[in-house]
């Protein structure tokens, strides 16, 4: 698979369909696993890491999985390709640029599953779904885990469960993250209240790119903190319950917006589209903020000539590595802002939404 072949695609998580997709962008579950006979990645020698890669590649090649999983060697990959995969949520920033030695990632052309090798743990399995689909994602990743574990001896402790490099992941090794688009809660200043409530029940809130990242474009990831002492199903059910509550709040807030300030919202959406379609320099952050306004406008039915998938397309294609791949050469910060503006202008004109 040439990575560039992914460029025009949206990838599973940005398909824009799936249950509750007016608020839930995507669902992700990851499992942390380690091979029994090697030190954790942080203490493994380059030779041991290379050995782990060989064994995992063998297991992946024989995996009972409906889509072909292709392995990509990260050290051999140009920096731009690594960043490209980070933007597509297929690898972590750590695997791309922080960790050293033999490591890589296997994923399918649909981008529905990825397996990172020699990340913080030997194996980080991940399944992505568009919309709110925790149960489907769990069914899939459970199967993927089974098929890999049939060929690999996994580090498991009768008391502590699946052993991980960091004790915050031990037990199930499961982290479920649901990405939500919450513009109305942001506008009505209720978002902090929601997050304070989440904190009390041990759920974490993060920005788009996980731990430590800022929330841009009203996108938030909600995930479980506790991985030990609860079954996988219980962990998922607890998140589900909370997400349904947040969904309700967000939808209520949207209804209130429509009722009390439809004209103002209409204006905001038109201005957002106007800026996106006529700027000559624009940052990734501003693009995300404006696309968030457009996305809300679509779901409030204030505009009907921009499909939700187009927003997702613009969202992913205007990120730094994607943009440089589209243009075909590297760009510095200023050049990127100009290229981004040009790309947005062209695409919006194609969509016929550029209002003179």
């Amino acid at each position: 698979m040439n990575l560039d072949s992914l460029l025009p695609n949206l990838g599973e998580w940005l398909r824009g369909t799936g249950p509750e997709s007016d608020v839930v962008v995507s669902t992700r579950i990851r499992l942390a696993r380690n091979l029994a006979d090697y030190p954790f990645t942080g203490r493994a020698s380059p030779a041991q890491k290379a050995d782990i890669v060989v064994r995992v590649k063998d297991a992946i090649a024989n995996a009972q999985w409906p889509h072909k999983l292709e392995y990509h060697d990260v050290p051999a990959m140009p920096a731009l390709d690594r960043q490209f995969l980070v933007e597509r949520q297929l690898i972590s920033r750590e695997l791309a640029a922080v960790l050293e030695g033999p490591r890589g990632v296997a994923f399918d052309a649909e981008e529905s599953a990825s397996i990172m090798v020699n990340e913080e743990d030997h194996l980080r399995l991940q399944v992505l779904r568009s919309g709110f689909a925790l149960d489907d994602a769990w069914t899939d990743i459970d199967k993927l885990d089974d098929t890999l574990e049939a060929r690999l001896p996994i580090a498991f402790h009768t008391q502590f469960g699946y052993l991980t490099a960091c004790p915050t992941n031990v037990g199930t090794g499961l982290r479920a993250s649901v990405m939500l688009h919450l513009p109305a809660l942001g506008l009505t200043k209720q978002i902090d209240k929601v997050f304070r409530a989440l904190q009390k029940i041990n759920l974490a809130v993060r920005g788009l790119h996980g731990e430590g990242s800022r929330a841009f474009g009203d996108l938030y990831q909600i995930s479980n903190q506790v991985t030990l002492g609860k079954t996988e199903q219980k962990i998922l059910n607890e998140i589900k319950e909370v997400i349904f509550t947040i969904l309700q709040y967000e939808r209520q807030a949207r209804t209130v917006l429509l009722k009390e300030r439809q004209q103002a919202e209409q204006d905001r959406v038109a201005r957002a589209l106007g800026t996106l379609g006529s700027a000559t320099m624009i940052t990734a952050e501003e693009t995300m903020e404006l696309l968030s306004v457009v996305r809300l406008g679509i779901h409030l039915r204030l505009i009907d000539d921009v499909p939700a998938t187009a927003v997702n397309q613009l969202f992913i294609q205007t990120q730094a590595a994607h943009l440089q791949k589209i243009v075909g050469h590297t760009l510095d910060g200023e050049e990127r802002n100009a290229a981004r503006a040009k790309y947005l202008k062209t695409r919006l004109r194609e969509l016929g939404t550029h209002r003179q």
Partner: protein
Amino acid sequence: MKCMFCDKPATVHLTDIVNKQKREAHLCESCAREKNLLPDEPGPVIDLSAYLQLMAGSPEQNPKKSAAWNDAACPACGMSYGGFKAEGRFGCAKDYDVFSVAVEQLLERAHRATAHVGKVPAAIRREIAATRFAELRTELTAAVEAEDYEQAARLRDLIRTMEAEGRSG
């Protein structure tokens, strides 16, 4: 109350209770930020691993945290508990047994639990079943020898059920 690291007034108060032992940390905002306990805006979530490090590392309140304890190393990977505290990551799977006492305290704080109840790898499930099977057979022999036929019948049923499950699974 003053910050435990500097003289500024403490505004961040952390308390946890493990095995009926109460432990407290009091910090000013800047020290809490420096120790990564407080995330950048807008995330209102306490950084769990930083919290663990602080708690695992609070020196005077836990007798186990002596120099000898910190330096004792895992025979498999060479990781010491002090090294774990500094890195926040274990070196290998054996560390969980080598440092099990500290691990349990840590897990109790992080997860409010010390034992896994979820998925078990198929290979381990088979191992557990085999051990249990052998135990039941021994008990059955003992019950027959003791002429406790009621118990023997119960055990035989259990063994049959397990055999049936083993065949289907």
